[in-house]
């Protein structure tokens, strides 16, 4: 399996992970009235998960070899 295919498969896996993270039922777990540093936990979760997903994508495409 060459580098292109590996990278493609990793990115597909990340896309599936994103579908899982931003969907029922994971999303429903965070739809609660509590807060993190004053921020509603759902909002905090979505933005953190989003940032983490982007970081992973950056890691996959920028990694050498």
């Amino acid at each position, binding site marked *: 399996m060459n580098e292109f295919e590996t990278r493609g498969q990793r990115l597909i896996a990340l896309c599936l992970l994103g579908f899982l993270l931003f969907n029922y039922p994971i999303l429903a777990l965070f739809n609660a009235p509590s807060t993190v540093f004053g921020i509603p936990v759902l909002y905090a979760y979505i933005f953190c998960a989003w940032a983490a997903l982007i970081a992973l994508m950056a890691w996959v*495409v920028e990694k050498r070899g």
Partner: protein
Amino acid sequence: MLQGWIIVFTSFAYLGLLFAIAYYADTRADAGRSVISSPYIYSLSLAVYATAWTFYGSVGRAASDGIGFLPIYIGPTLMIALWWVVMRKILRISKQNRITSLADFIASRYGKSALLGGAVTVIAVIGIVPYISLQLKAVSSGFLILMQYPEIVMPAKFAVPVAQDTALWVALILALFTIAFGTRHLDAAEHHEGMVAAIAFESLVKLLAFLAVGIYVTFVIYDGFGDVFSQAAAHRDLVPMLTPLSGLSGNYASWVWLTILSMAAIMFLPRQFQVAVIENKDERQLNKAIWLFPLYMLAINVFVLPIAFGGRMHFPAGIVDADTYVLTIPMAEKQELLALLVFIGGLSAATGMVIVETIALSTMVCNDLVMPVLLRLRSLRLNERPDLTGMLLGIRRGAIVLILLLGYLYFRLAGEAYALVSIGLISFAAVAQFAPAALCGIFWKGGTRRGALCGLLAGFGVWGYTLLLPAFARSGWLPIGLLEQGPWGIELLRPLELFGLKGLDQITHAMIWSMIANVGAYVAVSLSGSPSAEETRQASLFVDVFRTSRAGGGARFWRGTASVPELHSLLARFLGAEAADEAFHGYARARGLRWPEEAPVADADFVHFVETQLAGAIGAASARIMVASVVKEEALTLDEVRAMLDEASQIIVYSHKLEQKSQELERATNELRAANERLTELDRLKDDFVSTVSHELRTPLTSIRAFSEILHDHPDLPEADRARFLGIITKETERLTRLIHQVLDASRLESGRTEWHESLVDLREVIEDTVAATSQLFREREVRLETRLPERVPKVVADLDRIVQVVVNLLSNAVKFVESGRGRVEVAVLEDGEFVRVDVRDNGSGISLEDQRIIFDKFRQAGDALTGKPQGSGLGLHISRRIIERFGGRMWVESQPGDGACFSFTLPSVRELAFARAA
């Protein structure tokens, strides 16, 4: 300070700056130093996705339902992860076939069908025009609101006279702007470098403007994110928005469908296809874009919620439209500069979208709608005109003006009917209809032209029925009863609850039914018919793009005759004589010909080349018609195309196999060569060995023979001499025996026929025993022998007799090379990591560096010929090293000439084993 003229002046200054940037980038491109080949510019240009709809509308939607706007940006983030697989393929296909637009792409895939291209164009125009009018509305209402400063008044809902309408002026200025960038000249590759640079700059401006107002609201008006939300929690009517999701069928379903919808939008909005595919210069730009573009979307969304909550808390309900919070909050806080910056940000978001969208749509209208019709109308005699470039540009310019005026018309007629967000989503749903035909088309060869057309029309029909019809009804153009009772009173057909599907929002409802219709019709019709020859060949070119690029591309499917001058004049008509000459030059040069003196052969390859060039200017479908009009083609039957495809894939398989075989052969050859070298070396060594051995044998033999002859010839020798001679003979015989023994030993070691008796050996004991056994030798030569042995050393696994042999060899060597009387030899045993090491150090004359390298080789001895004859067979060290290596150890020498030598060897210790036994 915010007078009308300042706002107008700033806006024009901003547009002027855009012109300057675009002009600069175009000049650079002409000079061959493109600015847009940077992946950063590419990523920023993708951010044309964020329009005025994002800039103003996200806050508006967030203010009513919390996080409902987020899937529109999360969807593209997920989709772009798949770009590595999907977009790379689309890019490769588009480069090879010189695709000029989305309509061209779909038409090309399904046999260069002009009908399909036209259908895609019509759907795109109908779907996108409301979206353009939305941008006009955003700019004009932003302008009107800002003009009222310091009052905050929503723009009048009633129509102003057309001539005084800001939106009309905005539309006209943008039309001029787009014409200037988009149709400056006809480019065979449809690259608009200036436009892309300007768009990238606009993306930067809108991001900065939005971040500025976000930071102002969050950190200046409020005290950080936590503060905004905790203050919002105190408002009773805002509390439900803090946990905005509820109910599986409602919120979550619309969340999922909105995600899918925007995944399609990021690929198939005409402007996204334009910047991502048509304007792309290098596939490698994807690398950075895959994470930079999602990062951009994250950044532009971080402050949406604080601004939305801030606006809700700032203004009493119902006074200020939530879509304008971004602008009205800075105005209410008397931040004039910030308000102006926000207005410019909104302007950049709107203009960016309008410019790219109209360029993309005008290319589609020109290449896939107008040209195929004009070319078919024989009465126009287009074939006889020498130069059609002016006409092409004219059609595009006309299309740009027309599209913007349509946008304005829609704005006048229906502009106030809906909030910003719903119009944008209706457009998204329209372009999502392209997804099945385009995406399946690049992975599935079975899709046919009829299937794609039926799917597209079915999906578009459902879209019109479930989204457009209700919009018209609500605007009062159709009876509202249509929505409530259904057409002809049939409740099952109510556009918003089709077949009784209830409880979903309008977009989700429309998406579910239109996708079922679209995909269903596409698959069913494709499978029920069979593709034509042209469709089969295009399907193969698209689906197997990564394989066919090596096997000759599209040229191999053509048979016929053509004339070079006719093809040249055809190209010149659409590209201009200069560009046509240049293209022919390039083609001829690649084949070592000098155009125009030497004309290339008008073979399949050449006709394909001309058709692709032409496709870059007028689209694949029109190019096909034009080329077919000047060459005599033999139609290929479907079976022939299939046979060619089979043949081609066979050839690919064979060539792959051949490549593998030749690699294997090469490997085998290399191995053989290495073996041969090794054999030659061995042969040389054997010769050396034989000559050295015979030399070594001859020396003692000669002396034995000489002394025997003396004894034989002189029976009267004195007893003392006789005894001395006999002593020499005995000694030489012993030396001979030893030598033969060693030669045999060495050869056994080398051939691996030696028997080994492995046991646990205590090196300390070995040293003590050997030192005791050889002490006589040392005493004779008056050499001092010292030992440094630790209390305990780990045992090693070895053959005891062989190790003794090694140590004896080292000691007898050492004693030989030191000076009698002053000589000193030291033996030490020590632990060296996982090894046990033995050092035998002497204070003799040392060994030169050169000798150190060869001393372990066979029959090599230290010392030069001048100092007398070598003392030994030259096999001892060689044998010793072999023995040590046999037990996993290492043997080496360290020496400074004149300062003694130290021979060392190591053997791996078996400490654990020793401990286990002790316990």
